[in-house]
């Protein structure tokens, strides 16, 4: 069994000098397949020809001004310039059409806007493409361009700390912000006998260096993808949650893979000849839960179930479950139509009200498709997220129709997808999202992501803010703050 190449941020007593600040190694991994260009550039050739003739005469043959083009991004830099625009280079600045409105036209490429599906829209795909290619944080000028707010993630803002804060400078600073999270069970307190020996429940958990796991839906985890997920998770010190059969082939990554067992896999657990850090049980099965606990006492056994079972979460807790992997559909909805953000808050609060939140770990999947969703999901109560469709998009998956149901979604991948490229893309994505999480944590002045969990005082919701600001304005019917 291989050990993880990037473990949590711990200084061991044996080798204090071995401490290394957690770091994900990024490297440029450009797209394998070109997506449709962002813009279509139309140049009326007669108009351009006339202009060139006119300018040649006006400038008496001086070529410098004649050949000076209204584009600094190279759209007209081909051998025949504007007669064959290189529209894949267009960034939509519109300088060309501003200068030559009568024969240059730039428009959004409708084909590009068809990428993704009704939830995973092209804007999200663009962001992930950049993040997976570079490992960098997307930075742009000119402020925010989108809608004011909206439902779901868009109806929520995170806080920042103006002056008083223990962190400095976010990702660029010297002070450390930890993204380590614990997966497993932590008792609220320890008990000691008269000999000062602990007794009763003991902590049973492991740590991963970032609150991001990779979750492979069974339908999309061809062998090659499972290997990519496992290797990438191994290299960043996280976990790839994979179908049982795939895990059996990936024993080398035992530290970094977590098998998902379906009820029918119950009589095959003996085939698993190593102790995974995490085992997920798809749906509740008491005999299987007991059998897994007995056979793999070192492993954490999690219940993988829909958010809609929130009413029974405490019952599962009473039966011994301490780690829950809660699933919304790929559009972030539960069976009854509620959005994942509200589902997370409800689940978190249920355990808080029962006084056992510290004892459980909540992992969530579904509808978490952008870096900001990670921060918001943790803020609403998750310990960690397990990414699904973003991983596929990072690997340049194309959506074959709307991808909402895990079992009924279809994606196609580049033919030339290689393990090396795929692993780097996932590492880049993880690095970019972790850095963005650090930006959010740094802005709030939080030194570790564990403190972000359920920190609702640092969440702002549009409905509340709008009611507070506009409640006394005529026509407002959104209720009181």
């Amino acid at each position: 069994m291989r050990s993880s190449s990037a473990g949590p941020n711990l200084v061991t007593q044996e080798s204090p000098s071995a401490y290394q600040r957690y770091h994900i190694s990024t490297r440029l991994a450009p797209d394998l397949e070109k997506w449709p260009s962002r813009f279509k550039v139309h140049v009326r050739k007669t108009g351009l020809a006339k202009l060139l003739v006119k300018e040649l005469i006006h400038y008496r043959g001086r070529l410098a001004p004649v050949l000076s083009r209204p584009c600094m991004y190279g759209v007209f830099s081909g051998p025949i310039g504007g007669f064959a625009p290189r529209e894949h280079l267009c960034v939509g600045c519109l300088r060309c059409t501003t200068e030559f409105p009568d024969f240059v036209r730039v428009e959004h490429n409708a084909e590009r806007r068809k990428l993704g599906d009704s939830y995973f829209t092209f804007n999200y795909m663009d962001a992930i493409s950049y993040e997976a290619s570079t490992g960098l944080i997307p930075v742009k000028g000119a402020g925010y361009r989108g809608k004011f707010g909206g439902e779901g993630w868009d109806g929520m803002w995170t806080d920042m700390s103006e002056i008083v804060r223990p962190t400095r400078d976010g990702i660029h600073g010297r002070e450390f912000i930890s993204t380590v999270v614990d997966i497993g069970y932590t008792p609220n307190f320890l008990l000691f006998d008269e000999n000062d020996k602990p007794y009763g429940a003991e902590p049973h958990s492991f740590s991963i260096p970032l609150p991001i796991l990779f979750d492979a839906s069974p339908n999309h985890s061809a062998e090659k993808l499972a290997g990519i997920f496992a290797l990438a998770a191994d290299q960043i010190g996280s976990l790839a949650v994979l179908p049982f059969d795939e895990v059996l082939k990936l024993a080398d990554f035992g530290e970094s893979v977590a098998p998902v067992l379906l009820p029918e896999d119950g009589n095959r657990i003996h085939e698993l000849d190593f102790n995974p850090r995490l085992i997920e049980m798809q749906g509740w099965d008491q005999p299987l839960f007991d059998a897994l606990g007995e056979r793999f006492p070192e492993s954490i056994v999690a219940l993988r179930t829909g958010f809609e079972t929130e009413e029974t979460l405490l019952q599962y807790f009473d039966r011994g479950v301490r780690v829950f992997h809660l699933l919304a559909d790929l559009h972030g909805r539960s069976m009854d139509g509620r959005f994942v953000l509200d589902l997370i808050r409800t689940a978190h609060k249920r355990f808080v009200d029962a006084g056992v939140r510290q004892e459980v770990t909540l992992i969530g999947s579904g509808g978490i498709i952008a870096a900001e969703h990670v921060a918001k999901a943790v803020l609403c109560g998750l310990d960690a997220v397990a990414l699904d469709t973003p991983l596929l998009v990072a690997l340049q998956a194309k959506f074959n129709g709307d991808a909402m149901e895990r079992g009924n979604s279809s994606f196609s991948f580049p033919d030339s997808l290689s393990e090396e490229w795929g692993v780097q893309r996932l590492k880049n994505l993880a690095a970019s999202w972790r850095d963005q999480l650090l930006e959010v944590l740094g802005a709030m002045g939080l030194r570790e992501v564990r403190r972000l969990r359920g920190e609702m005082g640092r969440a702002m919701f549009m409905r509340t803010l709008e009611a507070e600001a506009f409640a006394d304005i005529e026509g407002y019917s959104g209720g009181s703050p």
Partner: protein
Amino acid sequence: MTETFASPGASLRTFTGEQLIVAKHVANLHNGFAFWPRAEEGPPALGDYRWTEDLILATWLMAETGRPPQNGLEYKVGASGGGFDLLDFKFLPQDQWLPVGVEIDLSIPLNKRGEGVEIEIPIPIYGGGMSYGSVSEQVMQSRARAAQKWGTFTSTGEGGYPLSLVPYKDNIITQVATGMFGVREETIQYAPIVEFKYAQGAKPGLGGHLLGDKATTTVAAMRESVPWVSLFSPFPFHSVYSVEDHRKHVDWIRTTNPRALVSVKVSTPTDVDMVAVGSYFAGANIVHLDGSYGGTGAAPEIAKKNIAMPIEFAIPRVHKYLESENVRDQVTLMASGGVRTAYDIAKAIALGVDGCVLGTAELVAIGCTRCSNCERGRGCPFGLTTTDPLLSQLMPVDWGAERLSNLYEAYAFQLRDILRKLGLKSIRALRGRRDLLKYIG
């Protein structure tokens, strides 16, 4: 369209190739800025939810004519589906409007503390900080000239104080930001107002960003940094951990320049109301709230939408809290970050601020298409957010100053019109009048 070549009749031999290139593109651009607002359809790829195609074209037209458009362009609201875009005014019936000839006062005081220099600006707007490096020196000069003409202010931003701005120093706010770039005793002494930038709306909780390609040798010299190396300003001030520390900061400025008013620019966290009150009690004359939807420079995308609240929500919160602390009339409250139009300004004032600070609107007036490529490579292809020596010539200083002045003129015209239809003779009387607004969502 008008002629698109360099000065007709001039001897071409007297011009260098570079001059001809610049002249050609400047003329073409100016024609384009005049053409598109009058065209039946705008450029198909122009605009977004916040700054719609109509808002951009209307701003171009106002910057050319000094009047709001009369050709059907929507110049009052965007299409964001929230905030200012869902508010409107409850105008009086037409027979109760103030007559056209009635004088309407748009001035606001910037020092209400009852001590120190009294400064009043004739319009309730001034220019926000845009640093040398994030924008060209030409843009800074244009803004300074427009501010001087109107008797208002513009801010240096955090990139230092170019010498070319010194002739306009009576209308320039020196910004002291966390990077402390170019902050020296003399630049503090130049200033009638010194602005502490604790945070900025586009990237709350993060420092300023100037990516390496734009950190030219001149920019780096101004900032005392290394050329072509990205600059990420720290956040927050490394010498300020508390309101008490902030008070010491204010004392530092007042010791260096006793006549300067102090402005404190903050972002909009959940406790923005308490931050504002703390700033006041630490000695601020102006509290400047910078909402999360503005910004003119490079910023992480995650910060723009997700961190801190929009200005529309922060204003009433701060205004009411200052009132409850009985200090509202001792402090000037300014807002920025998503203020796009004269109507936004008036709505912000009705929600509770005294005036507004402009950034993006000014850049749009001088040719910004909001393409978001400010940080890419050499910077803005229109010569605005760039320090490239060639590109920055695309925005001539005189032309820019005239455009900005015209924009102010158009805004002042509309603000007077709004007040007239509300039966108010002073912009000060509009402050906090939420009863004059209606929600149209």
